[in-house]
């Protein structure tokens, strides 16, 4: 009773907020935040550093044409394959880790009793924890702990992705239409059977579509694993930049863009064909 009274009394600042109406308040808050962040920059120092403008011109003119010699193309294609391989390995491990966690977090395989709260909460907390940390932060920590190797990078990529996939899978399992599940239940199916024959098949198209979208992100993530020393497109971009070979940088960037766009097109086509 007391709690309810506290809850329903409107604080003064919320009354003021009502006067403003929500949309206007949102606009004010967002504009204010950007202005505040702009004022935090040290505008005294020059925007371009010495020679930066010239380097920018050199970089842009190097696009016409980019480096296309056969020997470099072979190297660039090999780097693309390495990046793709890390992305595929990372996302498959993420699915393997994320799916069971997502099933537990959705709570759909347990009965509705009190005992199911603890595993659901634990799985949700674990998923939230692993996805809060960026894959590259995991990578620098894992390299410090385990040393640099392919498995370290795959694990670093897979952990946050498992956290994201698991959470989305859990939501998808919970958001399926309820009538077919009721039909299964009334025919005496256990929660696990309801999951296997009801929730899983109904959630599958969306789950596959989202996983493919994440696969596209994983390619970018695999490319930047170069920061801990993993070979691939990002690694070669860094090397070429250090040697001021801007034509090579363009070739590598265009290959990365092509790789991402192919997977993007694959995933959007697949999503369309899963819906029909």
């Amino acid at each position, binding site marked *: 009773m007391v709690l309810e009274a506290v809850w329903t009394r409107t604080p003064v600042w919320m009354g003021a907020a009502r006067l403003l109406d929500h949309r206007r308040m949102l606009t004010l808050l967002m504009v204010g935040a*950007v202005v505040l*962040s702009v004022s935090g920059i040290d505008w005294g120092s020059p925007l*371009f550093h010495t020679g930066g403008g010239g380097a920018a011109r050199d970089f842009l003119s190097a696009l016409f044409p980019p480096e296309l010699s056969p020997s470099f193309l072979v190297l660039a294609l090999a780097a693309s394959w390495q990046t*793709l*391989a*890390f992305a595929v390995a990372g996302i498959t491990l993420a699915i393997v880790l994320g799916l069971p966690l997502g099933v537990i977090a959705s709570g759909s395989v347990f009965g509705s009793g009190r005992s199911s709260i603890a595993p659901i909460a634990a799985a949700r907390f674990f998923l939230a924890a692993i996805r809060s940390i960026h894959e590259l932060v995991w990578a620098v920590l894992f390299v410090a*702990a385990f040393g*640099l190797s*392919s498995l370290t990078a795959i694990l670093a990529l897979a952990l946050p992705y498992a956290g994201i996939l698991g959470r989305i899978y859990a939501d998808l399992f919970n958001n399926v239409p309820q009538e077919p599940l009721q039909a299964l239940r009334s025919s005496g199916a256990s929660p696990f059977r309801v999951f296997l024959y009801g929730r899983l098949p109904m959630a599958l198209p969306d789950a596959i579509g989202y996983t493919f979208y994440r696969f596209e992100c994983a390619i970018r993530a695999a490319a930047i694993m170069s920061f801990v020393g993993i070979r691939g497109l990002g690694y070669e971009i860094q090397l070429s930049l250090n040697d001021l070979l801007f034509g090579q940088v363009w070739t590598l960037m265009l290959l990365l863009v092509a790789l991402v766009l192919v997977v993007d097109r694959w995933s959007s*086509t697949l999503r369309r064909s899963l819906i029909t």
Partner: protein
Amino acid sequence: MTTRIGISGVSPTSHPIRFTRISAITFLVLAVFSWGYLLVGNNSGLGNFSSSEMWDNASRFVQELAGVQAPVRPAFLNLDRWFETGKLAYQTLAMSVLAIGLAGIAVLATFLPGARNVGNGDLGGACSPGWRLLYYLVRAVFAFTRAVPELVWALLLVFFLSPGIFAGALALALHNYGVLGKLSAEVVENLDPSPAQALKRAGAGNLQMLLYGVMPQALPHFVTYLLYRWEVVIRTTVVVGFVSAGGLGRELRLSLSFFHYTDVSQIIIWYLILVITVDLLAAWLRRLARLE
């Protein structure tokens, strides 16, 4: 309408099941080859993970993070250090806001011609070669900026710009410009066209159709996407700090290379505080965007 040919030359609309099956098989083959390539290659790390030496090292690393037997007072027991790294956390937050702000302003200025139904004259715009060219141009810029990860943008930008918060924010903004631009253009493509067309019948010009028929419907979606992207950006800001000399990221990298492991754990605590704060703030602001 142009017909779209899917990968492997199978038209998805006529053979959806075949396309799904081919995709599944392709992905499985890719997975087998990738794992095979990475595990067979030198330095797979497979041997390391079964050696007790590596696990000893890992447990020592965790102990050092926790400040067990640290030679100096652990950073997380030192109030002054909390304030110093707190300032960096504020810088990181400012960088993320600036990044998402820059991306949002740029997207607002350019996303309308990137929608197919604006470019072909259904909703403002006009069915002319100029608008069509603009559509392809805007979409190509979205695709390119989106496909290049933030960190690669940062690497390039610190080549030209003085390293600092602004260079990092610009790198983050470039990638998110592509992401948000594509999402916003797709929102317009899926909009209900009737308000804009009613305006047209009432004699509205192109600009009026876009401003009063399209924008009011598209803006709430845009703001929602913007706030979702902010949650991603705050996680990535730390990483961009590795190269662009700003905020927590740079400090994390320095502390790791100087083996100041208790500083590392302090930075990670700040990082988690930032991530959780931004997630909560963004969720609250999204609720504001939804309410009338």
